[in-house]
């Protein structure tokens, strides 16, 4: 199991989501992708996308105005 970080700070929707989907394609089953973002809508969009596609997902607000989204490839 690998953990891959994806730095999407200061990037606007929908770029982080597109980057994350591309990165997830490269990962293997069980690997975890951590998306770092400073836009609240990125987390919302990621969670929505992950739930629709049956990925395990967790959204954490790490500090003021900053989020980490954990997505595990099934």
């Amino acid at each position, binding site marked *: 199991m690998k953990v891959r970080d994806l730095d999407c700070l*200061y*990037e606007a929707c929908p770029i982080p989501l597109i980057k994350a989907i591309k990165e997830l394609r490269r990962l293997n089953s069980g690997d975890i992708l951590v998306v770092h973002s400073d836009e609240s809508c990125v987390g919302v969009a990621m969670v929505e996308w992950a739930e629709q596609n049956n990925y395990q997902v967790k959204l954490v607000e790490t500090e003021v105005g900053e989020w980490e989204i954990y997505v595990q490839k099934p």
Partner: protein
Amino acid sequence: MFKNHNYYGKDWIKSMMQWLKKPWPYWVGGVLLGVLNVVLLAISGTVWQVTNGFLLWGAGALELVGFEPFKWEYFKLYNNRYEEIILNHNIFINKYTILNIGVVLGSLVATLLASQFKLGKAKNIRHILFAFLGGLMMGYGSRLTGGCNIGSFFSGIPSFSLHAWVFWIFITLGAWVGTRILIKFLI
């Protein structure tokens, strides 16, 4: 009894924080924006618009360095919109400016209440370049259409403006093409 009161008090604050922090559903935002736009029109006689204020700033800036943009054909076409402001020399501070300041202040209050305020940064030169290019293209486009998403679409449709429907079709097509280009070539 005091304890109970305290407990409920904290609960209330907690749900209030949740309500301020969590994004509201799209339909709530839509209804609110619609109602607020009607209120704005009823009070001030102007519908919500964004880029027309920026246009005046840009033209005002050009005037400061010696151009005469208000003599251009464009301002003859949109005479009814800007004549009063130009004649009164309110290029930089006018109703459009107040609307735009309101948007910034409102967003600031909302993000502070959610305690999610954070200043953005440019990541690298490419980031700056694309932001500049995007701004330039959107600005130019908004002049061709007489407004942006807000002025031409959001305020246009309820005013029974046919051009808002044309704008809607083409902005949808444009967003689709733009997303394709973004996915294929830029990310």
